[in-house]
């Protein structure tokens, strides 16, 4: 494909806004009297605030107000007993280093920033632990069940198999780090009317949270979030700093804007939790898997629990009669994690897909052949057929494109001077979700269509996908369709997460279009027009400037009958420098098996983006703490290494592009997660194939290559 984009593929509908700087992100709304909030954060990890001296800050030029637990700005839900442990400005407790303890509001950003540096706190420190590995290994530490244990067949059957692989895999904390810094503008008007300009993956969720905390009717709150500069999961909740900003606006009666720093992005808006996983695999010598055991420990916080689907994949991805899983979460004194792209499934897939490769090696089998041999016909976990699954075809296409035939099964076989070449493969899988959403469609006599829904677009191209669905169904050109989103006053839709937006909102768009079509047909019949008449003519003949319809759509009972997943196969070719230990990803082929491709150009970009994220997860990304202080040491873009352009080779993307007959009217399944899930294992497997070195702790930095013998 060589990154050639076919001419008939549609451009992103909001492309012009994004390339001209006209796209407005939350911080870019001009409001009269806008003020600037800057946070003061804790410098200890655990304990209590003893004193907070805000005098100097209050006297500093331009300062309007300093809010903290000392003056408890009004938030009715926090004034009651119970509720969350972390009630911002209603507790003197410190749960993690970098926790917001005050907000300084001033008339300029510079003044607020300077004044915030004048706020001085004293603390009563308590002993703490931010070291997840230590907490896992400490028999005394608190451990919580993250998910019910799962067992099919014999527990730990792998142990008695002919060939056994049992290995431990470590993932560090990763930080989402979307390019846009987090924040919000809160504008609390008289009569308890609130407008917020948010960076959120769910305008309805943000609206609901504000209503709950401030005990005002939900319809008093309008959340706007038209453009979101990336989220990757971190904008799936309303964070305490956003509540603090709303408090501040309510308190001073002016709009308050906050945009946190890149350093603060590491502490107070979630992260991919660290994990330690043990995989046990058993197989017959002929390569038949006989036992899978997946045990995982995941990081959570002390003040709020977080769990995700780390061990899901082991239950159904391979044909195996004996499977057991266990998922335990272990609290540490850090900010609470949140789903990060691919979420727990990406964490689990690194371990499982590395172990599968290790087993293939132990069996002296081609890992591709081993995977195909153990590819399941049915979902053994749910005892249902898959609605649609084309993995074998995906393996075939991808292996051809990467040049799998060049690969040698014996590691370290392809050597050219100091460079060693290796190939790796892995699979990614994620639940093909579909929720409930409403869409309003307005078909106008001027030939245009307006579609509206309170969904979000954090980057995948939601508006583009929806527009293409409507265009195809109604035969209206793309440039005559407008899809409006990112406003809580529009018909409700769920948050953008779990790769479900296209399936969920797209289905409602489908239903709206089908309904509009039949209304037009009815009108045509009633006015003695041809059934194939253009809707413009029909509306004009009926003297209607427009017709509108709102439809709610959700999944039906087909979900009871079928197991629905999206799949991806990642092929990676790497070159490893044996003297410096540098791993260079040389080529990537990702194959998506996720039903119909509605918007080829943006779908392809999503797969490319997932691969880039996967390169980061595999090779460069790790949020590092100094556990003596409980503070991050590389909390910036210079030291936390998100891949740069030079890290990324050409990426080929292929889609199976066959409709899933059961998921939704489009036959389309989500793609955001599978673009990343499993990718890191493909890299680790390629590194092993190149060097014979098996790195089980991410990221695979040059020092690890040199250290492993």
């Amino acid at each position, binding site marked *: 494909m060589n990154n050639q984009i076919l001419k008939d593929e549609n451009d992103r509908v909001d492309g012009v806004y994004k390339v001209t700087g006209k796209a407005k992100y939350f911080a870019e709304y001009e409001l009269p009297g806008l003020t600037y909030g800057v946070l003061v954060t804790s410098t200890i990890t655990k304990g209590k605030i003893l004193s907070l001296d805000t005098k100097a800050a209050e006297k500093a030029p331009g300062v309007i107000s300093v809010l903290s637990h000392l003056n408890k700005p009004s938030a009715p839900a926090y004034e009651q007993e119970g509720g969350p442990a972390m009630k911002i400005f209603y507790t003197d407790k410190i749960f993690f280093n970098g926790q917001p303890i005050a907000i300084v509001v001033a008339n300029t950003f510079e003044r607020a920033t300077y004044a915030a540096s004048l706020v001085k706190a004293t603390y009563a420190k308590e002993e703490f632990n931010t070291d997840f590995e230590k907490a896992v290994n400490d028999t005394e530490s608190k451990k919580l069940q993250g998910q019910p244990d799962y067992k099919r067949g014999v527990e730990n059957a792998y142990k008695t198999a002919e060939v056994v692989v049992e290995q431990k895999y470590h993932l560090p904390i990763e930080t989402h780090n979307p390019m846009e810094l987090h924040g919000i503008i809160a504008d609390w008007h008289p009569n308890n009317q609130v407008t917020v300009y948010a960076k959120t993956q769910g305008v309805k969720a943000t609206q609901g949270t504000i209503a709950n905390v401030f005990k005002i009717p939900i319809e008093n709150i309008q959340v706007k979030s038209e453009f979101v500069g990336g989220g990757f999961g971190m904008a799936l909740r309303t964070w305490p700093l956003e509540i603090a900003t709303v408090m501040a606006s309510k308190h001073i009666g002016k709009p308050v804007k906050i945009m946190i720093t890149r350093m603060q992005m590491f502490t107070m808006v979630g992260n991919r939790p660290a994990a330690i996983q043990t995989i046990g695999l058993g197989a017959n010598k002929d390569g038949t898997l006989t036992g899978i055991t997946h045990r995982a420990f995941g990081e959570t916080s002390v003040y709020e629990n977080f769990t995700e689907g780390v061990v899901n994949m082991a239950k159904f991805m391979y044909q195996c009669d004996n499977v057991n899983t266990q998922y335990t979460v272990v609290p540490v004194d850090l900010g609470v994690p949140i789903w990060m792209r691919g979420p727990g499934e990406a964490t689990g897939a690194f371990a499982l897909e590395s172990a599968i490769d290790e087993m293939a090696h132990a069996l002296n089998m081609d890992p591709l052949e081993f995977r195909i041999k153990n590819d399941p016909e049915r979902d053994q976990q749910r005892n249902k057929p898959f609605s649609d699954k084309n993995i074998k075809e995906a393996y075939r296409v991808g292996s051809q494109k990467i040049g799998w035939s060049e690969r040698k099964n014996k590691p370290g076989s392809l050597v050219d001077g100091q460079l060693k070449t290796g190939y790796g493969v892995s699979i990614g899988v994620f639940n093909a979700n579909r929720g409930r959403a409403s869409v309003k469609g307005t078909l106008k006599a001027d030939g245009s269509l307006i579609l509206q829904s309170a969904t979000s677009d954090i980057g995948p191209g939601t508006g583009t996908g929806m527009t293409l669905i409507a265009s195809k169904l109604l035969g209206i050109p793309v440039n005559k369709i407008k899809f409006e989103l990112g406003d809580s006053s529009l018909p409700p839709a769920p948050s953008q997460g779990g790769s479900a937006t296209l399936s969920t909102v797209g289905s409602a768009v489908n239903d709206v279009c089908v309904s509009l079509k039949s209304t037009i047909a009815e009108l045509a019949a009633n006015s003695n027009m041809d059934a194939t008449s253009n809707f413009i003519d029909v509306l004009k003949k009926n003297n209607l400037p427009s017709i509108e319809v709102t439809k709610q759509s959700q999944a039906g009972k087909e979900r009871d009958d079928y197991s629905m997943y999206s799949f991806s196969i990642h092929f990676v070719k790497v070159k490893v420098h044996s003297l410096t230990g540098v791993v260079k990803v040389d080529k990537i082929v990702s194959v998506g098996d996720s039903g119909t491709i509605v918007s080829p150009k943006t779908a392809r970009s999503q797969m490319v983006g997932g691969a880039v994220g996967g390169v980061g997860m595999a090779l*460069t990304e790790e949020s590092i703490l100094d556990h003596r202080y409980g503070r991050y*040491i590389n909390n910036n873009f210079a030291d936390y290494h998100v891949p740069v*352009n*030079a890290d990324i080779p050409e990426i080929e993307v292929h889609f199976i592009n066959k409709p899933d007959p059961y998921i939704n009217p489009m036959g389309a399944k989500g793609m955001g997660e599978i673009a990343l899930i499993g990718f890191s294992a493909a890299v680790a497997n390629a590194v092993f194939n190149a060097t014979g070195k098996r790195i089980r702790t991410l990221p695979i930095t040059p*020092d690890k290559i040199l250290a492993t013998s």
Partner: protein
Amino acid sequence: MINFQYLRTTSVKSAIALLLKDKNSKFIAGGTNLIDLMKRGVSAPEKLIDINHVPLKQIELVGNNIVIGALASNTAVAENALIKDKLPLLAMALNAGASAQLRNVATVGGNMMQRTRCGYFYDTEMPCNKRQPGSGCGAVGGFNRMHAIFGTSDKCIAVHPSDMCIALVALDAVVVLANSKGERKISFKDFHRLAGDTPQLDNNLKADEMIIRLEIPVNNLAKNSHYLKVRDRASYAFALVSVAAGMEISNNKITDIRLAMGGVAHKPWRLTASENFLKGKKATIENFEQAAKLAMADAKGYGENNFKLQMAPNTIIEALNVAKSKA
């Protein structure tokens, strides 16, 4: 950031006069490091003296020296035809640092004054003897993967962050400094300091001095030069280890050799013992390996950076190999 006073000046003389007037003042040129440090609260000058308009941007051949003004931008130097032709090692090192945007404004003098990238230095809530003498060193016993293996002290194990300076120390550059009374010259290898008991001092620039220019003697290393930077990502990252290697090879023998390393010490680390060993020898892999071994004689790891004890000699060998192989 405090609302400092901002002054502009157009001559070396007035710049120094302004500097002397207030001890809590600083020069600002490109500002790419200083503004970053001010935003982090690491540096808080009350007065900034903008020296960008002082005419010190020359890049020219003067006699047997290539002269580079202190205010020439990193890009201007890296893209200069004379530099590319005569000192490709310097151009390579410059292009290995930062990004195109930063190099466009970062100056030669500013690059020399660049402060360490140590995370403890940058976080005002952590101990750091360099930022706050006497507060301790967070990196000793802490996160020290990026830190020094040569010339360390128990007070500080931070590394010098520049790439340009690694090439300059290899090229025997001379730094010309001015104060109100006149100029003095200092060899580049003596410009930066080891941490010792005074890690707060990165270099030997005196409080009343200004960097004026560099003088780099012309050499015959251009053909067989290479700057190799090993880092955690392919670009826009500080070095784990870097090596500047330049050789003059005639009749299959090494007649001149320069070797320096970055990412390993508090100053650009010249590998004199390795150079002495290689001088007059054949450019063979065996000799490169021996030279790399000699380079590591006094190296010491601090735990997380122990890998550098292997990565450093490997990188020396690879850099020499690549330099030698250039046609």
